[in-house]
């Protein structure tokens, strides 16, 4: 999960699609509809197109390069006079993974962090075996998370994703 603006993504696709369809309709059926023919471009129009192309290229590059932001590695960062403490998403995956070690249905635990509305969110991905007892796995993660809350001395917002073993990467524990 990232912070990408999804409404604008949809709007961009919508506008590009409509422009393509309109241009195709104009080229293919403009004369039949009585629309004016495409004029020969004057020097002024040529420069306007060059300018427009530069703007389109710059805006497109800005949008493409801004995709996928929002992931974070450090879930918690403390600063104090004695020094600083950071808690890494991998550490959390290890803690939760250890707590789930006695669950035969769980094959892997991984975690990342992302920021949303100014808060660090822990994203836990638990991979289970085919035909796992889903209710039991969720209860076990609940227990593990309660322990985690105790260790971290705070309740991070948590996203738990339970996925099948198809995409499993076996994790040595």
């Amino acid at each position: 999960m990232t912070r990408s603006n999804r409404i604008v993504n949809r709007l961009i696709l919508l506008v590009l699609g409509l422009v393509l369809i309109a241009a195709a309709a104009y080229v293919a059926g403009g004369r039949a509809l009585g629309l004016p023919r495409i004029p020969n471009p004057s020097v002024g129009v040529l420069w306007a197109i060059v300018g427009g192309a530069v703007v389109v290229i710059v805006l497109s590059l800005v949008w493409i390069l801004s995709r996928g932001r929002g992931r974070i590695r450090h879930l918690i960062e403390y600063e104090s006079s004695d020094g600083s403490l950071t808690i890494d998403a991998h550490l959390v995956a290890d803690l939760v993974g250890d707590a789930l070690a006695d669950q035969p249905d769980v094959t892997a635990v991984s975690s990342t962090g992302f920021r949303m509305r100014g808060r660090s969110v822990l994203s836990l991905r638990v991979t289970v075996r085919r035909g796992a007892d889903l209710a039991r796995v969720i209860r076990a993660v609940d227990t593990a998370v309660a322990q985690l809350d105790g260790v971290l001395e705070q309740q991070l917002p948590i996203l738990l994703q339970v996925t099948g073993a198809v995409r499993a990467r076996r994790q040595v524990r």
Partner: protein
Amino acid sequence: MSSLYPRILRRENHRSRSLAVSIALSLLILVAAYVGIECGLAAYGLDPLLVTPAAAVGWLRSGEIIVYVAAGLAALVGVVLLLLAILPGRRARHSVPNDRMAVIVDDGVLAGALARDARRVADVAPERVRADVSKRRARVIITPTSGVPVDANAAQATADGLLTELAPRPTVRARVSVAAAGEVGS
């Protein structure tokens, strides 16, 4: 935190269009760069890279078949982009209510849990039960062993019980069916 979860779940249940947008904009950059360069060269009165803008406009006005084919292809790409923009883009996942966490479960895992319960109740080998889950429906098909009856009602009740306990959203209703023809063996 409570206001954060609905947003997280909504985003996790729907596909991001970032990849589609990035591809579309990359192509747009290539086209804009080429058109811009040709127009710049023509404005300076220099030789074109491939065709002058005037020649290109003349070709578009020519009414040759190839122009219509090109227009048709462009319209097709336009329709694809439009569909990507409008369709919901739901992922094969359901959210499960939980007090502490935002929980998302792949439909395949949900189907696996249903198949597991059905296999227990029907007392058949794992490969005798098939289950799949779509947005609002779960289908469980049990192939019984020949001569050994399977209690379809019990299997249905178990599936309903699991879906009531987990309460996946959007709501899923189970339909358990027992195949008419059994198979020989355990």
